[in-house]
Protein backbone atom coordinates (compact mmCIF):
# COMPACT_ATOMS: atom_id res chain seq x y z
CA UNK A 1 0.00 0.00 0.00
CA UNK A 2 1.29 3.42 -0.89
CA UNK A 3 1.82 5.87 1.86
CA UNK A 4 0.03 8.96 0.70
CA UNK A 5 2.01 12.15 0.75
CA UNK A 6 0.50 14.13 3.58
CA UNK A 7 1.14 17.52 2.07
CA UNK A 8 -0.62 16.56 -1.09
CA UNK A 9 -3.58 15.35 0.82
CA UNK A 10 -3.84 18.27 3.11
CA UNK A 11 -3.48 20.65 0.24
CA UNK A 12 -7.04 19.89 -0.62
CA UNK A 13 -8.33 20.22 2.89
CA UNK A 14 -6.66 23.52 3.53
CA UNK A 15 -8.46 25.16 0.70
CA UNK A 16 -11.81 24.48 2.30
CA UNK A 17 -13.16 27.39 4.22
CA UNK A 18 -16.76 26.57 4.90
CA UNK A 19 -17.81 25.25 8.23
CA UNK A 20 -21.31 24.27 9.04
CA UNK A 21 -22.45 20.73 9.52
CA UNK A 22 -20.49 17.78 10.69
CA UNK A 23 -22.06 14.96 8.83
CA UNK A 24 -19.63 12.51 7.35
CA UNK A 25 -20.78 9.80 5.14
CA UNK A 26 -19.63 6.30 5.81
CA UNK A 27 -18.36 4.51 2.72
CA UNK A 28 -20.45 5.36 -0.25
CA UNK A 29 -21.79 8.51 1.41
CA UNK A 30 -25.17 8.54 3.04
CA UNK A 31 -28.36 10.28 2.20
CA UNK A 32 -27.47 12.92 4.72
CA UNK A 33 -24.51 13.75 2.61
CA UNK A 34 -26.49 13.76 -0.57
CA UNK A 35 -29.14 16.03 0.82
CA UNK A 36 -26.64 18.47 2.16
CA UNK A 37 -24.53 18.39 -0.92
CA UNK A 38 -27.59 19.37 -2.89
CA UNK A 39 -28.69 22.03 -0.50
CA UNK A 40 -25.25 23.40 0.21
CA UNK A 41 -23.59 23.91 -3.12
CA UNK A 42 -20.52 25.80 -1.97
CA UNK A 43 -20.37 29.42 -2.95
CA UNK A 44 -16.62 29.14 -3.24
CA UNK A 45 -16.05 26.40 -5.76
CA UNK A 46 -13.49 23.86 -4.86
CA UNK A 47 -10.59 24.17 -7.22
CA UNK A 48 -9.69 21.35 -9.55
CA UNK A 49 -6.50 19.99 -8.17
CA UNK A 50 -3.85 18.91 -10.63
CA UNK A 51 -1.40 16.62 -8.94
CA UNK A 52 1.62 14.57 -9.88
CA UNK A 53 0.84 10.88 -10.00
CA UNK A 54 2.92 7.78 -10.51
CA UNK A 55 1.31 4.58 -11.75
CA UNK A 56 2.89 1.18 -12.24
CA UNK A 57 1.44 -0.20 -15.44
CA UNK A 58 2.58 -3.39 -17.12
CA UNK A 59 5.74 -3.35 -15.07
CA UNK A 60 6.73 0.21 -15.87
CA UNK A 61 6.39 3.41 -13.89
CA UNK A 62 4.58 6.32 -15.47
CA UNK A 63 4.72 9.79 -13.99
CA UNK A 64 2.25 12.43 -15.06
CA UNK A 65 0.19 15.31 -13.79
CA UNK A 66 -3.53 14.82 -13.61
CA UNK A 67 -6.66 16.19 -12.07
CA UNK A 68 -7.40 14.39 -8.82
CA UNK A 69 -10.70 13.29 -10.33
CA UNK A 70 -9.02 11.36 -13.14
CA UNK A 71 -10.10 7.75 -13.27
CA UNK A 72 -7.66 4.95 -13.84
CA UNK A 73 -9.26 4.44 -17.26
CA UNK A 74 -8.79 8.04 -18.35
CA UNK A 75 -5.27 8.09 -16.94
CA UNK A 76 -4.35 4.99 -18.94
CA UNK A 77 -5.87 6.33 -22.14
CA UNK A 78 -5.16 10.04 -22.03
CA UNK A 79 -2.10 10.35 -19.79
CA UNK A 80 -0.13 7.19 -20.44
CA UNK A 81 -1.28 6.54 -23.99
CA UNK A 82 -2.42 2.98 -23.40
CA UNK A 83 -5.68 3.08 -25.33
CA UNK A 84 -6.38 -0.64 -25.32
CA UNK A 85 -8.69 -0.26 -22.32
CA UNK A 86 -11.96 1.16 -23.60
CA UNK A 87 -14.66 3.48 -22.37
CA UNK A 88 -18.11 2.09 -23.05
CA UNK A 89 -20.24 3.53 -20.30
CA UNK A 90 -17.99 5.17 -17.70
CA UNK A 91 -20.34 3.87 -14.98
CA UNK A 92 -19.44 0.26 -14.34
CA UNK A 93 -22.15 -1.09 -16.61
CA UNK A 94 -20.24 -2.65 -19.52
CA UNK A 95 -16.82 -4.01 -18.51
CA UNK A 96 -14.91 -2.61 -21.51
CA UNK A 97 -12.42 -0.94 -19.15
CA UNK A 98 -11.55 -4.10 -17.22
CA UNK A 99 -7.91 -4.16 -16.09
CA UNK A 100 -6.05 -6.00 -13.36
CA UNK A 101 -4.96 -4.22 -10.20
CA UNK A 102 -2.64 -6.37 -8.13
CA UNK A 103 -3.90 -9.31 -10.14
CA UNK A 104 -7.62 -8.74 -9.57
CA UNK A 105 -9.94 -7.72 -12.36
CA UNK A 106 -11.51 -4.33 -11.68
CA UNK A 107 -13.16 -1.55 -13.64
CA UNK A 108 -10.90 1.32 -14.61
CA UNK A 109 -13.81 3.70 -14.94
CA UNK A 110 -14.83 3.44 -11.28
CA UNK A 111 -11.31 3.52 -9.91
CA UNK A 112 -9.54 6.78 -9.16
CA UNK A 113 -6.06 6.82 -10.61
CA UNK A 114 -4.73 8.34 -7.42
CA UNK A 115 -6.04 5.43 -5.39
CA UNK A 116 -3.99 2.79 -7.20
CA UNK A 117 -0.60 4.42 -6.90
CA UNK A 118 1.85 1.81 -5.72
CA UNK A 119 -0.23 -1.04 -7.06
CA UNK A 120 0.52 -3.15 -10.12
CA UNK A 121 -1.83 -2.35 -12.96
CA UNK A 122 -1.98 -4.74 -15.91
CA UNK A 123 -3.74 -3.81 -19.12
CA UNK A 124 -4.31 -5.62 -22.39
CA UNK A 125 -1.05 -4.12 -23.67
CA UNK A 126 0.81 -5.97 -20.94
CA UNK A 127 -0.66 -9.40 -21.50
CA UNK A 128 1.49 -10.72 -24.33
CA UNK A 129 5.08 -11.75 -23.64
CA UNK A 130 7.88 -9.24 -24.12
CA UNK A 131 8.76 -10.85 -27.44
CA UNK A 132 5.22 -10.37 -28.66
CA UNK A 133 4.09 -13.95 -28.17
CA UNK A 134 0.39 -13.75 -27.50
CA UNK A 135 -1.12 -14.95 -24.23
CA UNK A 136 -3.07 -18.20 -24.71
CA UNK A 137 -6.28 -16.25 -24.11
CA UNK A 138 -5.46 -13.83 -26.91
CA UNK A 139 -4.69 -16.71 -29.25
CA UNK A 140 -7.90 -18.48 -28.28
CA UNK A 141 -9.95 -15.35 -28.96
CA UNK A 142 -8.55 -15.20 -32.49
CA UNK A 143 -9.01 -18.91 -33.11
CA UNK A 144 -12.64 -18.92 -31.96
CA UNK A 145 -13.56 -15.60 -33.55
CA UNK A 146 -14.53 -14.42 -30.08
CA UNK A 147 -15.07 -10.82 -31.16
CA UNK A 148 -16.41 -8.84 -34.04
CA UNK A 149 -15.93 -5.10 -33.78
CA UNK A 150 -13.26 -5.71 -31.14
CA UNK A 151 -14.16 -2.79 -28.93
CA UNK A 152 -15.11 -4.80 -25.84
CA UNK A 153 -12.37 -7.34 -26.52
CA UNK A 154 -9.65 -5.90 -24.30
CA UNK A 155 -12.02 -6.01 -21.35
CA UNK A 156 -13.27 -9.46 -22.28
CA UNK A 157 -9.76 -10.86 -22.43
CA UNK A 158 -8.63 -9.22 -19.19
CA UNK A 159 -11.75 -10.54 -17.53
CA UNK A 160 -11.25 -13.99 -19.00
CA UNK A 161 -7.66 -14.28 -17.83
CA UNK A 162 -8.69 -13.32 -14.30
CA UNK A 163 -11.64 -15.69 -14.44
CA UNK A 164 -9.37 -18.64 -15.07
CA UNK A 165 -7.03 -17.54 -12.30
CA UNK A 166 -9.99 -17.20 -9.93
CA UNK A 167 -10.96 -20.79 -10.61
CA UNK A 168 -14.32 -19.81 -12.06
CA UNK A 169 -13.89 -21.48 -15.42
CA UNK A 170 -14.77 -25.00 -14.33
CA UNK A 171 -17.75 -25.35 -16.65
CA UNK A 172 -19.22 -23.52 -19.61
CA UNK A 173 -22.06 -22.31 -17.40
CA UNK A 174 -19.52 -20.94 -14.93
CA UNK A 175 -17.72 -19.16 -17.74
CA UNK A 176 -20.98 -17.66 -18.97
CA UNK A 177 -21.87 -16.41 -15.52
CA UNK A 178 -18.47 -15.06 -14.58
CA UNK A 179 -18.02 -13.41 -17.99
CA UNK A 180 -21.36 -11.65 -17.66
CA UNK A 181 -19.77 -8.43 -16.47
CA UNK A 182 -18.48 -7.82 -19.99
CA UNK A 183 -21.10 -6.79 -22.49
CA UNK A 184 -20.54 -7.63 -26.14
CA UNK A 185 -23.01 -5.83 -28.34
CA UNK A 186 -21.88 -7.76 -31.41
CA UNK A 187 -22.87 -10.78 -29.32
CA UNK A 188 -19.86 -13.03 -29.73
CA UNK A 189 -20.77 -14.71 -26.46
CA UNK A 190 -20.78 -18.38 -27.54
CA UNK A 191 -17.39 -17.89 -29.19
CA UNK A 192 -16.06 -16.19 -26.07
CA UNK A 193 -17.10 -19.20 -24.00
CA UNK A 194 -15.32 -21.50 -26.44
CA UNK A 195 -12.19 -19.36 -26.36
CA UNK A 196 -12.06 -19.20 -22.57
CA UNK A 197 -12.62 -22.91 -22.33
CA UNK A 198 -9.70 -23.60 -24.68
CA UNK A 199 -7.35 -21.09 -23.08
CA UNK A 200 -8.18 -22.40 -19.61
CA UNK A 201 -6.67 -25.74 -20.48
CA UNK A 202 -3.54 -24.12 -21.87
CA UNK A 203 -3.20 -21.74 -18.91
CA UNK A 204 -3.56 -24.59 -16.43
CA UNK A 205 -0.91 -26.55 -18.28
CA UNK A 206 1.69 -23.79 -18.03
Amino acid sequence: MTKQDDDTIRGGLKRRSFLQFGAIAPFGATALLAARAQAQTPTVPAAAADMPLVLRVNGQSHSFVADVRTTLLDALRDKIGLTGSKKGCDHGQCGACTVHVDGRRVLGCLTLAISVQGKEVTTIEGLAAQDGTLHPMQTAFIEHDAFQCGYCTSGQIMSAVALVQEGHAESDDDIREYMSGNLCRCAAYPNIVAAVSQAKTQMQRT
Partner: protein
Amino acid sequence: MRPFSYQQSTDPSQAVQAGMAGDAASAGTTAYLAGGTSLLDLMKLDVLRPQNLIDINPLHATHGEITVSATGLRLGALARMADIADNADVLRDYPVVAQSLQLAASAQLRNMASIGGNLLQRTRCSYYRDTSYAACNKRIPGSGCAAMDGVNRIHAVLGVTDKCIASYPGDFAQAMIALDGQVELLGPNGKRSIPFAQLHLQAAVSPEVETTLRPGELIIALTIPAGPHTARSGYIKVRDRQSYAFAIASAAVALDIGADGIVRDARIGLGGIHYAPYRATAAEAVLRGRALDDASATEAATAALQGAVTHGHNDYKPELARRTLIRALIHVRDMPVAGAN
Protein backbone atom coordinates in the same frame (compact mmCIF):
# COMPACT_ATOMS: atom_id res chain seq x y z
CA MET B 1 -17.82 15.35 -10.61
CA ARG B 2 -16.81 18.22 -8.38
CA PRO B 3 -13.26 18.64 -7.19
CA PHE B 4 -12.40 17.08 -3.89
CA SER B 5 -9.54 16.71 -1.52
CA TYR B 6 -8.23 13.20 -1.20
CA GLN B 7 -6.43 11.30 1.47
CA GLN B 8 -5.89 7.69 2.32
CA SER B 9 -6.29 6.33 5.77
CA THR B 10 -4.66 3.24 7.18
CA ASP B 11 -6.32 3.36 10.55
CA PRO B 12 -10.05 3.62 11.31
CA SER B 13 -9.65 6.16 14.10
CA GLN B 14 -7.52 8.29 11.86
CA ALA B 15 -10.11 7.93 9.10
CA VAL B 16 -12.86 9.14 11.41
CA GLN B 17 -10.70 12.01 12.61
CA ALA B 18 -9.84 12.98 9.08
CA GLY B 19 -13.45 12.70 8.11
CA MET B 20 -14.57 14.97 10.93
CA ALA B 21 -11.88 17.46 10.07
CA GLY B 22 -12.90 17.39 6.45
CA ASP B 23 -16.52 17.79 7.36
CA ALA B 24 -15.79 20.68 9.59
CA ALA B 25 -13.98 22.33 6.74
CA SER B 26 -16.53 21.68 4.06
CA ALA B 27 -20.04 21.83 5.41
CA GLY B 28 -20.39 18.17 5.99
CA THR B 29 -19.52 16.98 2.54
CA THR B 30 -16.92 14.37 3.29
CA ALA B 31 -17.32 10.83 2.09
CA TYR B 32 -15.45 7.63 2.79
CA LEU B 33 -14.27 5.98 -0.40
CA ALA B 34 -14.07 2.20 -0.41
CA GLY B 35 -14.85 0.26 -3.60
CA GLY B 36 -16.14 3.43 -5.18
CA THR B 37 -18.62 1.53 -7.29
CA SER B 38 -21.57 3.58 -6.03
CA LEU B 39 -19.84 6.73 -4.91
CA LEU B 40 -17.83 7.50 -8.05
CA ASP B 41 -20.77 6.51 -10.23
CA LEU B 42 -23.01 9.02 -8.49
CA MET B 43 -20.30 11.67 -8.34
CA LYS B 44 -19.89 11.47 -12.10
CA LEU B 45 -23.63 12.02 -12.40
CA ASP B 46 -23.32 15.01 -10.06
CA VAL B 47 -25.84 13.39 -7.71
CA LEU B 48 -23.28 13.23 -4.92
CA ARG B 49 -20.84 16.09 -4.45
CA PRO B 50 -18.45 15.32 -1.63
CA GLN B 51 -15.68 17.85 -1.22
CA ASN B 52 -13.42 15.48 0.64
CA LEU B 53 -12.75 11.82 0.05
CA ILE B 54 -11.20 9.68 2.72
CA ASP B 55 -9.93 6.62 0.91
CA ILE B 56 -10.28 3.79 3.41
CA ASN B 57 -9.14 0.99 1.11
CA PRO B 58 -5.89 0.64 3.06
CA LEU B 59 -8.04 -0.55 5.95
CA HIS B 60 -8.52 -3.78 4.03
CA ALA B 61 -5.36 -5.10 5.66
CA THR B 62 -6.86 -4.83 9.12
CA HIS B 63 -10.58 -4.79 8.40
CA GLY B 64 -11.00 -7.24 5.57
CA GLU B 65 -11.44 -10.41 7.58
CA ILE B 66 -13.96 -13.15 6.84
CA THR B 67 -14.32 -15.31 9.91
CA VAL B 68 -16.73 -18.12 10.57
CA SER B 69 -16.73 -19.23 14.20
CA ALA B 70 -19.03 -20.94 16.65
CA THR B 71 -20.66 -17.63 17.46
CA GLY B 72 -21.25 -16.60 13.90
CA LEU B 73 -19.93 -14.88 10.82
CA ARG B 74 -17.81 -11.79 11.09
CA LEU B 75 -16.99 -9.65 8.09
CA GLY B 76 -14.56 -6.78 8.18
CA ALA B 77 -16.20 -3.84 6.48
CA LEU B 78 -13.53 -3.76 3.79
CA ALA B 79 -13.93 -7.42 2.88
CA ARG B 80 -14.73 -7.56 -0.83
CA MET B 81 -17.98 -9.02 -2.04
CA ALA B 82 -16.17 -11.54 -4.25
CA ASP B 83 -14.01 -12.86 -1.45
CA ILE B 84 -16.99 -13.46 0.80
CA ALA B 85 -18.98 -15.10 -1.99
CA ASP B 86 -16.10 -17.50 -2.67
CA ASN B 87 -15.29 -18.27 0.98
CA ALA B 88 -15.73 -21.99 1.60
CA ASP B 89 -16.92 -21.56 5.20
CA VAL B 90 -19.48 -18.98 4.18
CA LEU B 91 -20.65 -21.14 1.30
CA ARG B 92 -21.16 -24.06 3.68
CA ASP B 93 -22.60 -22.37 6.75
CA TYR B 94 -24.24 -19.24 5.31
CA PRO B 95 -25.24 -20.09 1.76
CA VAL B 96 -27.75 -17.23 1.63
CA VAL B 97 -24.91 -14.78 2.25
CA ALA B 98 -22.69 -16.26 -0.44
CA GLN B 99 -25.51 -16.51 -2.96
CA SER B 100 -26.80 -12.99 -2.42
CA LEU B 101 -23.31 -11.72 -3.14
CA GLN B 102 -22.53 -14.05 -6.01
CA LEU B 103 -25.75 -13.06 -7.79
CA ALA B 104 -25.04 -9.34 -7.40
CA ALA B 105 -23.42 -7.04 -9.94
CA SER B 106 -20.50 -8.49 -11.90
CA ALA B 107 -17.26 -10.24 -11.01
CA GLN B 108 -15.33 -7.01 -11.47
CA LEU B 109 -17.67 -4.98 -9.29
CA ARG B 110 -17.66 -7.71 -6.65
CA ASN B 111 -13.87 -7.60 -6.66
CA MET B 112 -13.99 -3.88 -5.97
CA ALA B 113 -16.98 -3.29 -3.72
CA SER B 114 -16.58 -3.51 0.03
CA ILE B 115 -19.22 -5.28 2.05
CA GLY B 116 -19.82 -2.21 4.18
CA GLY B 117 -20.34 -0.02 1.16
CA ASN B 118 -22.55 -2.63 -0.45
CA LEU B 119 -25.13 -2.09 2.28
CA LEU B 120 -25.24 1.62 1.51
CA GLN B 121 -25.82 1.46 -2.22
CA ARG B 122 -28.37 3.81 -3.68
CA THR B 123 -31.60 3.31 -5.48
CA ARG B 124 -31.66 2.86 -9.24
CA CYS B 125 -34.59 5.28 -9.63
CA SER B 126 -33.94 7.11 -12.93
CA TYR B 127 -35.25 10.37 -11.55
CA TYR B 128 -32.84 10.21 -8.63
CA ARG B 129 -29.86 9.36 -10.80
CA ASP B 130 -30.50 12.06 -13.41
CA THR B 131 -30.12 15.56 -12.03
CA SER B 132 -31.92 17.04 -15.02
CA TYR B 133 -35.20 15.95 -13.45
CA ALA B 134 -36.33 18.64 -11.06
CA ALA B 135 -38.52 16.53 -8.83
CA CYS B 136 -36.77 14.12 -6.51
CA ASN B 137 -37.28 14.35 -2.79
CA LYS B 138 -34.26 12.19 -2.24
CA ARG B 139 -31.98 14.62 -4.05
CA ILE B 140 -33.77 17.84 -3.30
CA PRO B 141 -36.06 17.66 -0.25
CA GLY B 142 -39.47 19.04 -0.99
CA SER B 143 -39.08 18.97 -4.76
CA GLY B 144 -41.55 16.14 -5.30
CA CYS B 145 -41.33 12.68 -6.78
CA ALA B 146 -41.18 12.30 -10.55
CA ALA B 147 -41.39 8.52 -10.30
CA MET B 148 -44.82 8.45 -8.71
CA ASP B 149 -46.55 9.10 -12.04
CA GLY B 150 -43.57 8.29 -14.19
CA VAL B 151 -41.73 5.21 -15.30
CA ASN B 152 -41.79 3.16 -12.11
CA ARG B 153 -41.50 -0.46 -13.12
CA ILE B 154 -38.57 -1.11 -10.80
CA HIS B 155 -39.96 0.89 -7.91
CA ALA B 156 -40.99 -0.23 -4.45
CA VAL B 157 -44.42 -1.34 -3.30
CA LEU B 158 -43.73 -1.48 0.43
CA GLY B 159 -42.33 1.20 2.70
CA VAL B 160 -43.32 3.83 0.19
CA THR B 161 -44.93 7.16 0.96
CA ASP B 162 -46.22 10.03 -1.11
CA LYS B 163 -42.70 11.41 -0.93
CA CYS B 164 -40.71 8.59 -2.46
CA ILE B 165 -41.27 5.19 -4.03
CA ALA B 166 -37.64 4.31 -4.65
CA SER B 167 -36.69 0.70 -4.13
CA TYR B 168 -33.61 -0.42 -2.28
CA PRO B 169 -31.51 -2.25 -4.88
CA GLY B 170 -29.26 -4.46 -2.76
CA ASP B 171 -29.15 -8.23 -2.43
CA PHE B 172 -26.82 -8.96 0.48
CA ALA B 173 -28.82 -6.63 2.73
CA GLN B 174 -31.75 -9.03 2.51
CA ALA B 175 -29.58 -11.81 3.87
CA MET B 176 -28.26 -9.51 6.56
CA ILE B 177 -31.69 -8.49 7.74
CA ALA B 178 -33.05 -12.02 7.58
CA LEU B 179 -30.18 -13.35 9.70
CA ASP B 180 -30.31 -10.62 12.37
CA GLY B 181 -27.04 -9.08 11.26
CA GLN B 182 -25.33 -6.49 13.39
CA VAL B 183 -23.31 -3.49 12.24
CA GLU B 184 -20.27 -2.29 14.15
CA LEU B 185 -19.64 1.39 13.82
CA LEU B 186 -16.83 3.68 14.76
CA GLY B 187 -17.60 7.34 15.28
CA PRO B 188 -15.94 10.33 16.87
CA ASN B 189 -17.31 9.19 20.21
CA GLY B 190 -16.14 5.62 19.89
CA LYS B 191 -17.66 2.34 18.85
CA ARG B 192 -21.23 1.18 18.89
CA SER B 193 -23.10 -1.74 17.46
CA ILE B 194 -26.59 -1.66 16.04
CA PRO B 195 -28.87 -4.26 14.49
CA PHE B 196 -28.68 -4.01 10.71
CA ALA B 197 -32.44 -3.69 10.72
CA GLN B 198 -31.95 -0.30 12.33
CA LEU B 199 -29.36 0.98 9.87
CA HIS B 200 -31.81 2.01 7.18
CA LEU B 201 -34.89 4.08 7.85
CA GLN B 202 -37.73 1.75 7.01
CA ALA B 203 -40.16 4.16 5.41
CA ALA B 204 -39.77 7.01 2.98
CA VAL B 205 -40.58 9.73 5.47
CA SER B 206 -37.54 11.89 4.86
CA PRO B 207 -36.20 10.36 1.66
CA GLU B 208 -33.08 12.50 1.71
CA VAL B 209 -32.00 10.71 4.89
CA GLU B 210 -31.57 7.00 4.29
CA THR B 211 -29.73 5.75 7.34
CA THR B 212 -29.36 6.26 11.04
CA LEU B 213 -25.63 6.73 10.80
CA ARG B 214 -24.35 9.58 12.88
CA PRO B 215 -21.98 12.22 11.61
CA GLY B 216 -18.56 10.76 10.94
CA GLU B 217 -19.50 7.19 11.62
CA LEU B 218 -17.66 4.50 9.74
CA ILE B 219 -18.82 0.93 9.34
CA ILE B 220 -16.09 -1.28 10.82
CA ALA B 221 -17.53 -4.76 10.67
CA LEU B 222 -20.66 -6.80 10.16
CA THR B 223 -21.63 -9.82 12.17
CA ILE B 224 -24.23 -12.48 11.71
CA PRO B 225 -25.01 -14.72 14.68
CA ALA B 226 -24.79 -18.46 14.23
CA GLY B 227 -28.00 -20.40 14.45
CA PRO B 228 -29.63 -23.64 13.42
CA HIS B 229 -31.22 -21.94 10.43
CA THR B 230 -28.17 -20.50 8.64
CA ALA B 231 -27.03 -23.64 6.83
CA ARG B 232 -30.45 -24.22 5.28
CA SER B 233 -30.63 -20.94 3.53
CA GLY B 234 -30.65 -19.54 0.04
CA TYR B 235 -31.26 -16.54 -2.15
CA ILE B 236 -33.55 -16.44 -5.16
CA LYS B 237 -33.14 -13.43 -7.41
CA VAL B 238 -35.56 -12.63 -10.19
CA ARG B 239 -34.37 -10.21 -12.83
CA ASP B 240 -34.84 -9.31 -16.47
CA ARG B 241 -31.68 -10.99 -17.60
CA GLN B 242 -29.73 -13.92 -16.29
CA SER B 243 -26.90 -11.97 -14.70
CA TYR B 244 -25.50 -8.48 -14.08
CA ALA B 245 -28.90 -7.01 -13.31
CA PHE B 246 -30.69 -5.68 -10.31
CA ALA B 247 -33.43 -7.72 -8.69
CA ILE B 248 -36.98 -6.88 -9.58
CA ALA B 249 -37.88 -9.29 -6.80
CA SER B 250 -35.74 -11.43 -4.57
CA ALA B 251 -36.01 -13.51 -1.44
CA ALA B 252 -33.45 -14.44 1.18
CA VAL B 253 -34.67 -17.38 3.16
CA ALA B 254 -33.22 -19.32 6.09
CA LEU B 255 -35.10 -22.19 7.69
CA ASP B 256 -34.77 -24.39 10.73
CA ILE B 257 -36.94 -27.41 10.06
CA GLY B 258 -37.35 -30.16 12.61
CA ALA B 259 -37.19 -33.87 11.92
CA ASP B 260 -40.98 -33.82 12.01
CA GLY B 261 -41.01 -31.39 9.11
CA ILE B 262 -42.25 -28.57 11.30
CA VAL B 263 -40.65 -25.16 10.79
CA ARG B 264 -38.97 -24.19 14.04
CA ASP B 265 -37.68 -20.93 12.71
CA ALA B 266 -37.96 -19.02 9.47
CA ARG B 267 -36.03 -15.93 8.45
CA ILE B 268 -37.08 -14.01 5.36
CA GLY B 269 -35.71 -10.93 3.68
CA LEU B 270 -37.28 -9.61 0.49
CA GLY B 271 -35.56 -7.49 -2.13
CA GLY B 272 -36.63 -5.37 -5.07
CA ILE B 273 -39.96 -4.42 -3.57
CA HIS B 274 -39.29 -2.32 -0.50
CA TYR B 275 -37.98 1.15 0.13
CA ALA B 276 -35.33 -0.32 2.43
CA PRO B 277 -33.96 -3.76 3.28
CA TYR B 278 -37.05 -5.69 4.33
CA ARG B 279 -37.60 -8.44 6.89
CA ALA B 280 -40.88 -10.19 6.23
CA THR B 281 -41.72 -10.97 9.86
CA ALA B 282 -45.39 -11.55 9.12
CA ALA B 283 -44.46 -14.29 6.70
CA GLU B 284 -42.07 -15.81 9.20
CA ALA B 285 -44.86 -15.91 11.80
CA VAL B 286 -47.14 -17.76 9.41
CA LEU B 287 -44.55 -20.50 8.96
CA ARG B 288 -43.35 -21.03 12.50
CA GLY B 289 -44.78 -24.18 13.99
CA ARG B 290 -46.18 -25.42 10.70
CA ALA B 291 -45.10 -27.76 7.99
CA LEU B 292 -43.75 -25.90 4.97
CA ASP B 293 -45.83 -26.89 2.01
CA ASP B 294 -47.38 -25.11 -0.96
CA ALA B 295 -50.29 -23.94 1.14
CA SER B 296 -48.28 -22.50 4.02
CA ALA B 297 -45.73 -21.02 1.63
CA THR B 298 -48.50 -19.29 -0.27
CA GLU B 299 -50.06 -18.04 2.94
CA ALA B 300 -46.72 -16.72 4.14
CA ALA B 301 -46.03 -15.02 0.84
CA THR B 302 -49.40 -13.37 0.89
CA ALA B 303 -48.74 -12.10 4.40
CA ALA B 304 -45.38 -10.69 3.31
CA LEU B 305 -46.98 -8.49 0.68
CA GLN B 306 -49.82 -7.18 2.81
CA GLY B 307 -50.28 -3.48 2.37
CA ALA B 308 -48.42 -3.23 -0.91
CA VAL B 309 -49.04 -0.02 -2.81
CA THR B 310 -48.39 0.09 -6.54
CA HIS B 311 -48.06 2.91 -9.04
CA GLY B 312 -48.82 1.53 -12.47
CA HIS B 313 -45.77 0.01 -14.09
CA ASN B 314 -44.99 -1.84 -10.87
CA ASP B 315 -48.47 -3.27 -10.41
CA TYR B 316 -47.00 -6.69 -11.08
CA LYS B 317 -44.55 -6.57 -8.23
CA PRO B 318 -46.66 -7.85 -5.33
CA GLU B 319 -47.62 -10.93 -7.32
CA LEU B 320 -44.09 -11.50 -8.54
CA ALA B 321 -42.65 -11.02 -5.06
CA ARG B 322 -45.21 -13.44 -3.67
CA ARG B 323 -44.20 -16.08 -6.21
CA THR B 324 -40.53 -15.38 -5.62
CA LEU B 325 -40.93 -16.06 -1.93
CA ILE B 326 -42.91 -19.23 -2.53
CA ARG B 327 -40.20 -20.43 -4.90
CA ALA B 328 -37.47 -19.57 -2.41
CA LEU B 329 -39.23 -21.27 0.50
CA ILE B 330 -39.73 -24.51 -1.39
CA HIS B 331 -36.21 -24.33 -2.80
CA VAL B 332 -34.63 -23.89 0.62
CA ARG B 333 -36.86 -26.52 2.19
CA ASP B 334 -35.69 -29.05 -0.38
CA MET B 335 -32.02 -28.11 -0.56
CA PRO B 336 -29.52 -30.69 0.60
CA VAL B 337 -27.79 -29.63 3.80
CA ALA B 338 -24.80 -31.52 5.12
CA GLY B 339 -25.50 -32.94 8.56
CA ALA B 340 -29.05 -31.64 8.62
CA ASN B 341 -32.03 -33.77 9.46
